[in-house]
């Protein structure tokens, strides 16, 4: 059976790194083990690095950068450029790359961000794990 693939938003990766006891953390572990395929783009990488540099230091961000590059599938902008044009105005500009990436690859968007509410394919970490038959933590993230 092919592995489940999903676009993972920075809101999930950052919480998964910081909160070990969270549904986001379980998702990070599953990506690390190769149980699911986590798909991201360069904008997600940039967002994660920016937040973690502010919270800790550059060495910590470097570790996370290497982890992202070795564990996630990173989609180049050229692959979703067309969807960027098609989806302009449907979501805030800050999330357009992510919606376009998910649409281009026909993937669910696993995120904890109310700006995705109402967007087709949006799913919180908790609900995503429920689709896999895994429920551990009560929080949505």
């Amino acid at each position, binding site marked *: 059976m092919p592995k489940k693939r999903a676009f993972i938003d920075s809101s999930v990766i950052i919480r998964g790194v910081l909160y070990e006891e969270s549904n986001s953390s379980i998702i990070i572990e599953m990506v690390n083990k190769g149980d699911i395929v986590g798909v991201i783009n360069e*904008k997600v990488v940039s*967002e994660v690095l920016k937040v973690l540099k502010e*919270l800790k230091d*550059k060495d910590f961000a470097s*570790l996370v950068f*290497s982890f992202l590059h070795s564990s996630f599938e990173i989609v180049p902008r050229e692959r979703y450029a067309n969807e960027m044009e098609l989806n302009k105005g449907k979501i805030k500009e*800050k999330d357009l790359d992510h919606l376009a990436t998910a649409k281009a690859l026909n993937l669910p968007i696993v995120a904890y961000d109310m700006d995705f509410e109402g967007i087709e394919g949006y799913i919180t970490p908790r609900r995503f794990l429920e689709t896999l038959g895994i429920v551990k933590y009560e929080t949505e993230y």
Partner: protein
Amino acid sequence: MVIGMDAATIELEEEILDEMRKRGIAETKDEAITIALLNFALSTDLLSRNAVLRKIREKAKGIKIEEAELERLIQNAKEASIHR
């Protein structure tokens, strides 16, 4: 005898560093070297992804932040990384 890098290699190194800066990956040469070493170690199995994730978890334990403040940082980072 000290063997230095030739001009072409130095130029290539500068181009890579410049691109890393533009993409917000690294700001200094030291930072770029750390990332390059980690990525080399991961791609050649000198280091496992599990080991890196364990280290990340260990270092993350010292970070204390309120959920509302974290949400603000994430939203700011999303706005700041809009490709224009």
